[in-house]
């Protein structure tokens, strides 16, 4: 594994395209922290009021988490919010039975290179209320859409809310395997658990393969060899724009090794395994958050400042890559 940057330094590098810092700062300023927290609150309520998965029928009745897995009400909430902003939501429906998946897709078509796609994804299914995992990622994408939908984009921005991630990335795997031919995924940005922070020493367990800080107050930017350039660009943008503490790590090859397994536990892994570039943004989930996959994963445990900064950084990076104007 190659450590490309850790918290400070490593800001000088060659971008595929020169960034426009002032413009990106303008985009970041449009992120509204209160909207993020309010949206997480609403999504948690949606999960808590939903009818959970029939864990007896699935054959896993002894796993309490599985008996508190939900997705339908959160999916309805996402559609409702998007449609209130004028978006046209398409449903990528695949599979049959209890694990039929419904990925929710919104697209902002590029005006210069429409076949070049910058894809942003997060799963919307959760165990229990799922504030950090993954209502934070869902809300981040909704805010990203709100900010960038008012802009002209050179490349196509596609946002996909993935279904059934918690059981092995089922929705994203089906989505990637049915990607339309003729378009190029320039990069996929995947959010999973992006709202939890703890600055106390000892609050962060180590990521495998590199010296992790003991304070859990950084955002991890995780790439593989295919997405190394974009991972380093995101890190350099963060340093240049002075957004937040960040750590970047790049796995060699496709990243699929037993030792890097903890870095693969979200939807970006199916992009990696399909040879597509993907950057994973995470607060490192269970390596930091004691509420991970627990009943206590509620909105009041999130750090609004940290969360907003993650969304600001993401907005700048995606805005840069998609050629927002």
């Amino acid at each position, binding site marked *: 594994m190659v450590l490309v940057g850790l918290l400070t330094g490593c800001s000088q590098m060659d971008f595929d395209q020169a960034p426009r810092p002032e413009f990106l700062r303008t985009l970041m300023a449009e992120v509204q922290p209160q909207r993020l927290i309010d949206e997480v609150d609403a999504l948690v309520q949606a999960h808590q009021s939903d009818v959970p998965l029939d864990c007896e*029928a*699935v054959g*896993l009745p002894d796993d309490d988490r599985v008996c508190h897995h939900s997705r339908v009400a959160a999916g309805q909430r996402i559609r409702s919010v998007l449609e209130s902003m004028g978006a046209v939501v398409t449903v990528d429906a695949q599979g049959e039975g209890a694990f039929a998946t419904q990925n929710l897709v919104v697209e902002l078509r590029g005006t210069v290179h429409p076949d070049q796609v910058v894809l942003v994804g997060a799963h919307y299914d959760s165990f229990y209320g799922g504030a950090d995992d993954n209502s934070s990622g869902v809300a981040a994408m909704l805010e990203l859409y709100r900010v960038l939908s008012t802009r002209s984009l050179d490349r196509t921005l596609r946002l996909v809310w993935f279904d059934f991630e918690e059981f092995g990335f089922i929705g994203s795997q089906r989505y990637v395997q049915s990607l339309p031919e003729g378009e190029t995924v320039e990069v996929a940005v995947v959010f999973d658990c992006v709202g939890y922070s703890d600055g106390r020493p000892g609050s962060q367990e180590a990521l495998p393969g590199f010296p992790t800080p003991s304070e859990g107050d950084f955002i991890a930017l995780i790439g593989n060899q295919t997405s190394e350039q974009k991972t380093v660009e995101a890190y350099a943008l963060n340093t240049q724009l002075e957004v937040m503490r960040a750590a970047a790590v790049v796995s060699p090859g496709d990243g699929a090794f037993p030792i890097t*397994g903890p870095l693969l536990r979200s939807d970006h892994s199916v992009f990696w395994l399909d040879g597509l570039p993907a950057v994973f943004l995470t607060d490192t989930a269970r390596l930091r958050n004691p509420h991970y996959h627990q009943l206590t994963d509620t909105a009041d445990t999130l750090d609004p400042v940290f969360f907003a900064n993650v969304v600001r950084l993401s907005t700048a990076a995606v805005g840069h890559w998609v050629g927002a104007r």
Partner: protein
Amino acid sequence: MLILASLLALATGTVPASPHELTLGVVGWEYRGFLSGSEPLVGLELGYRHSVQSTPLSVGALVRAAAPNPGTVVPLEVGISLELRAPIGFWQPGAGVELGWSGLSQVDLSWRGGLPPGAHTQEEALLGPWYLGFGVSPLRFAFGRWTVSALELQLGATAFPLGAGARVQLGLLKAGVSL
């Protein structure tokens, strides 16, 4: 262990070692992918080893068998090995490499109940049948024509692609005889 070694030493006396050795042992091992792992495997290993004259090197071949997991077609492993031994009296520690083919390099998905496989199908596809391992035998003792070895450790990776899976093996107890 030492009592067993002493008894063997008394029983066998000092018989000149031949370059040909047969071994039989009980081993445990498992595979790990990037998401999950195999069931722990326990099986029998039968090996043949030939010492290269006037060198501490030996080459070998082996076959290993375990109870099949669901989905296993051939519950066997076959391999060839190269080992360096450093005899110090009757203590004969060694280290070496093994290249093999396994019909058991599969992840265990039984815990998923009725769930669709998801990314685990990709994980399983990456766990190829070939493996390369590096092992040490720190507790091997020779008594005349007999050898006994315990707690041999081997760490390896599956191929191809190399490193997509990890393989960990513990040789619990092996006995050998020079022919």
